[in-house]
């Protein structure tokens, strides 16, 4: 008791949490995702994860030894980097990919900048981007059930339908760590333990959702928004990558801004960009902005904030929400209500509108193929339509697309005619959609417009019998438009005077339909 004990300034007790503890918990929080990834993708995924982690920790270990630095590899942060990198890889990559990625992530992005706490971009993302740039093809090959397919995010960008439930569970293809459910379990655990900051992860998700809702072209359609959030690493980015301590701001306001930047940039890249995995880039961009946010966005201590200063003078200062001018509140509320109402009306009427379009088309089919009880297709038509992929038809019909081609059957199942729905974008005032009908022998029954919004008294007159009758009852393979009139033969059409553009567009559309008929439908029957 007489020896002089260690003298030190306070505090003399410390919280139990250490760097290593936090990093271990983050690693554990990634376990559900890793397990689902291995279960869904098989043993190779496990090998990828192990390779990535081993190389990440090994690189840091070797760097410590070579550079004579304290044993920082023990703090478990390299494990987190390795895990994150592996989980953001395709389950089909060869093992040198995670190995190289981890080495780059730890050696170049982390250790060379001073190690833990000093790197300026997220090491795992740096590793991933390094791999994307160096091994583009291997990195973007995503097999599902043995077949290379587009990831759900890529499908979404192409405007295709995706299975949201499978995306949520993680069985829809994509990277190893694509199980949104597992990621959210881990992320929410970290959030509830105060390890990751809600200001970051929720502002990322919020910013992204809002941007996609406003500019994605589908409004607040919940299915669409959920699909967008579930794809392309948004959830992993929000909970595990954007929240990386070192590369995100420390202050609450800075974190909020940082999160919104990531979310919005992610939305911009998703909607206007070309790469489906652009969330990596949006996080890295925000990482680079962090020092700027840190320099300029510094919260004042409580005693120097406006409310406190007022109180020190003995005045009361109304809380923020009471200081907003009333008209502003009213306008915001009205805008919100109108926005929600509009998108509500849109999603409610969307199905009805489509139904009406179908009904109009069906009515048009019946009108141009009299006697038909039902319409169907055959394999020739299907393969021809598939080959078209909805693109421009032919080369000399202008901007024409074939919407649908059907064989009309009577009650007895006999072919009574053919209907082809064609849209041309060459109208004066937008798209013109018409249905061309032919009887079983190839004689044109007539044309019916399902979409015609041309100038009244001019282009609109293309809908008049005077014009449409010219197509009826003839059997030709191609019409020619006579701009100055004087048609005497079956294959010439007099233009509506003063509406030659519309007339030409209609004739081109009809010719395209006839061409399609000649090539794929003529004499065709069901079977």
């Amino acid at each position, binding site marked *: *008791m*007489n020896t*002089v*004990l*260690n*003298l*030190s*300034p*306070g*505090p*003399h*007790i*410390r*919280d139990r*949490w*250490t*760097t*290593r*503890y*936090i990093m271990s918990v983050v690693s554990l929080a990634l376990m559900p995702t890793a397990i689902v990834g291995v279960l869904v993708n098989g043993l190779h995924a496990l090998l990828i994860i192990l390779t990535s982690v081993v190389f990440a920790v090994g690189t840091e270990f070797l760097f410590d030894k070579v550079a004579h630095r304290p044993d*920082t590899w023990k*703090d478990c942060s390299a494990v987190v980097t390795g895990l994150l990198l592996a989980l953001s890889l395709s389950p089909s990559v060869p093992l040198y990919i995670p190995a190289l990625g981890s080495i780059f992530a730890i050696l170049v992005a982390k250790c060379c900048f*001073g*190690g*833990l*706490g*000093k790197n300026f971009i997220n090491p795992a993302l740096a590793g991933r981007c390094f791999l994307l740039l160096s091994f583009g093809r291997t990195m973007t090959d995503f097999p599902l059930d043995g077949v290379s397919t587009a990831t759900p995010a890529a499908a979404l960008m192409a405007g295709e339908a995706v299975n949201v439930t499978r995306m949520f569970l993680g069985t829809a293809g994509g990277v190893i760590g694509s199980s949104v459910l597992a990621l959210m379990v881990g992320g929410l655990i970290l959030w509830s333990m*105060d390890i990751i*900051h809600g200001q970051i992860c929720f502002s990322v998700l919020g910013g992204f959702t809002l941007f996609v809702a406003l500019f994605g072209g589908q409004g607040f359609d919940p299915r669409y928004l959920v699909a967008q959030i579930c794809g392309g690493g948004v959830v992993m980015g929000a909970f595990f990558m954007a929240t990386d*301590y*070192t590369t*995100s701001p*420390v*202050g*609450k306001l800075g*974190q909020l801004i940082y999160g919104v930047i990531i979310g919005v940039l992610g939305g911009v890249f998703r909607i206007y960009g070309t790469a489906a995995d652009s969330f990596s880039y949006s996080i890295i961009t925000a990482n680079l902005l962090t020092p700027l946010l*840190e320099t300029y966005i*510094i*919260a*004042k*201590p*409580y*005693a*120097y*904030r406006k409310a*406190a200063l007022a*109180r*020190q003078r*003995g005045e009361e200062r109304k809380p923020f929400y009471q200081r907003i001018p009333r008209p502003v509140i009213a306008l915001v509320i009205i805008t919100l209500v109108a926005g929600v109402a509009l998108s509500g009306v849109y999603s409610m009427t969307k199905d009805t509108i489509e139904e009406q379009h179908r009904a109009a088309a069906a009515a048009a089919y019946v009108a141009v193929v009299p006697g038909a009880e039902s319409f169907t297709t055959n394999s020739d038509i299907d393969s021809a339509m598939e080959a078209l992929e909805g693109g421009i038809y032919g080369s000399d019909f202008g901007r024409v697309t074939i919407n649908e081609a059907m064989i009309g059957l009577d009650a007895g199942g006999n072919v009574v005619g053919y209907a082809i729905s064609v849209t041309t974008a060459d109208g004066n005032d937008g798209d013109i959609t018409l249905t061309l009908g032919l009887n079983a022998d190839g004689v044109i029954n007539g044309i019916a417009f399902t979409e015609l919004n041309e100038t009244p008294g001019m282009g609109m007159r293309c809908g008049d019998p005077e014009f449409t009758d010219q197509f009826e009852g003839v059997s030709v393979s191609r019409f020619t438009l006579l701009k100055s009139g004087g048609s005497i033969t079956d294959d010439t059409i007099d233009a509506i005077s003063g509406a030659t553009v519309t007339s030409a567009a209609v004739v081109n559309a009809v010719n395209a339909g006839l061409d399609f008929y000649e090539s794929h439908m003529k004499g065709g029957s069901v079977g």
Partner: protein
Amino acid sequence: MRNTFRGGVHPKDRKDLSRSAPLRSYDATGEMVFPLAQHIGKPAKAVVKKGDRVLVGQCIAQADGFVSAGIYSSCSGVVKAVEKRRVISGTMQECVVIDNDGAYTPVASWDVKTDPATLSREEILDRVKNAGIVGLGGAGFPTHVKLMPKDPDGIRYVIANGAECEPYLTGNDQLMRTEAKTILEGLEITLRLFPHAVGVVAIEKNKPEAIEAMTQAARGMDKVQILPLPTKYPQGGERSLIQVIAGVDFPVSKLPADVGCIVDNVGTMYAIARAVQYQEPLFTHVLTVTGEAVKEPQNLIVRDGTSFRELVEAAGGVKDGVELKKILVGGPMMGMTLGSLDVPVQKTSNGLVLLNRDGSEEAQAQMTACLHCGRCTTVCPQGLMPQMMAEAAEAGDLERYEKKLYGLECVACGSCTYICPAKRPLTQTFKQVKSEIMAKKRAGGK
């Protein structure tokens, strides 16, 4: 009123070790040492010399100036020397050393009670001043100065601080349980000085018996409220209390009185009651002897000047089979380490904590680079950004530290250092930088 202050940490309170030990007096046997500088302000001037005979309660050093406090003997005996002795801070300070005769003959009986209602404002302040009372919460600011703010009518709250938020310490808990009435008398006397103020007794909820005792004793007092508060460090910091009770945050350049508050420890309130009613000077106070390395933790009423070594013996000594790793005066968050037990108890010493673990040493072994995790920012009760402050300090950017980050607003509560998972010595850095900046300012004239 908000429920709690912003930020703060939740260290294990360890109060169970000594919570139920009843308050008892401990009379020292050895020589008594009275440092002349036990308070904020000018050190007292010794008024005795070697060979003088003194009695208990006799003034041995006089206040030197307005912001200063007198010192009173806690024993009877003969002055052995007025010389430099080692004190808690580890430095050598001028002290009055008294050879304790063990008889404890008092200089007066202090049993004639004066009704404070018959005393004028000046008389009350005089009695407080003549009792040498200083803030017993730890800082040791002379109480009579605190009770004479520029604008007494502007004081809205008189807060009796019974939060005792430092882990381990239970002295105030026991004092509130046993002397609730006297503490409230002290509070009422203080309230007489401030006609527009109400009294609030702030107690953390981990002291239910104390809350109960104080609530009972306060029954019928219409200007006094007992306020239980969540258990959170630094709840007992005066800024934390004022943030909760008055709803005001104020910079370190201002005093609580500037925002209409007077905060005094419950022990100080007790001393005020004794001083004003019986003219008894301050020479004893409560002190908890506790910690994992102590055999029988105690809540003691100790006499100033007692050697800490005697207090360890009073608590049964060091526990067998336990290695003593650290000795603290005060709590483990803001207390000071002792290199030797042979230093005297001062007025502001509220705890002696003997630990079997050295948190600082362990932290040093676990230290990593800063993670930027932001925990320090979350817990800072002042709303500062400790991580950025440490970065600025490391880079030597004192301009940013002071002007952009308001680094001088740090009150050194230790919350950031406590919570830091990278175990960075933040508070230590901030104390150093603060003294560096202050030194520069003094050198630069202003």
